[in-house]
């Protein structure tokens, strides 16, 4: 079972991710902010995908992404940003920092599922 961590301060978004991915044999874990996310990243082994809201309270999703990419223990985890249309410049920064792509909110659950499958393919590039 593939493990996904979704970091978003909206419980609805975290629940949408769980509802979309759990039927497809993903294990979905949630964090509402970067502090909880960093705790999960420290404790989890074999995380297959990280979904990060760009706008988070406290430390931003971009800053968390940069920390994940700088850590030898986590840099290989594919990261998908969850964003809004207003975040274009932040998305360019995320892309340069190593994010594999993004989904623009509101997004369809089917799109999230196909994206998660794609980024967790066994032969997906680091």
């Amino acid at each position, binding site marked *: 079972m593939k493990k996904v961590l979704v970091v978003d301060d909206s419980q609805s978004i975290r629940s949408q991710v769980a509802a979309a991915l759990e039927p497809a044999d993903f294990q979905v874990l949630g964090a509402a902010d970067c502090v909880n996310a960093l705790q999960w990243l420290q404790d989890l082994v074999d995380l297959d995908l990280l979904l990060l809201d760009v706008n988070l309270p406290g430390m931003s999703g971009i800053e968390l992404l940069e920390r994940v990419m700088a850590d030898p223990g986590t840099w290989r985890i594919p990261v998908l940003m969850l964003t809004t249309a207003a975040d*274009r410049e932040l*998305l360019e920064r995320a892309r340069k920092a190593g994010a594999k792509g993004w989904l623009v909110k509101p997004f369809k659950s089917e799109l999230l599922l196909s994206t998660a499958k794609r980024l967790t393919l066994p032969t997906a590039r680091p």
Partner: protein
Amino acid sequence: MALAALREIFRAEVEELLVNLDAGLLELERSRESDAARERLFRAGHTLKGIGGVIGWIEFMRLTHALESVLDHLRAGTLRASDELIGALFAGVDSVQRMVRAGESSDVALSGYGPALNRLRALEPPAPDSLVPGVPSLYEIVLRFRPDLAALSEDTKLLLDQLGVMGELVSVEPLPESMSSFERDATRVPPGLRVLLRTPETELAIKGVCVYSADEDRLRIVRLAETSRDASEPERAARERRSE
């Protein structure tokens, strides 16, 4: 997670956001120039729009998109906190509340929705149709796969699945310069694709799913046409560009 549980979480979060919006609007009425009120309103409207996809209710998404757009203009100072603006925002908030309390299958859910949406849309400068949920545009997507992805036929299939979820795949073709090697080995993924996609999503959303397969210098996304269902003219233009 069961759909009923998801709906309940969604409904509770919407109600909380609506409380914030109501409080923000009352504050704005008292103090029309308050930056704090404008920022608070935008944050709540922004989150409300963002969760619109959780249950996929198109009218809800349209209305919250319009609310957020007006709030964004208000925050940026491109709209004033006039009586009409505040009235339109209250009407929009009331309509969202009616919708979420009644539920999609209720006859009363959309009572007042049309006038509320029109009042909000009348306030803001015209937006490109591709930014309005539910109004499709035709896009030409040209991408050359990264060499390390060229052999991943499953990735290509999933990419096309993603684009198909976003709208209608009008056409999918390998890039002409890659045809000969592709035809020699039909199991190989072509190094590049040209896709015509009709979708209500924005260019930014399309780019978000394509950048995994192609760096920015290997990816081009061009909006060809707005709402016409007759794509023959832009498709002809796309063919003419290919022959140049």
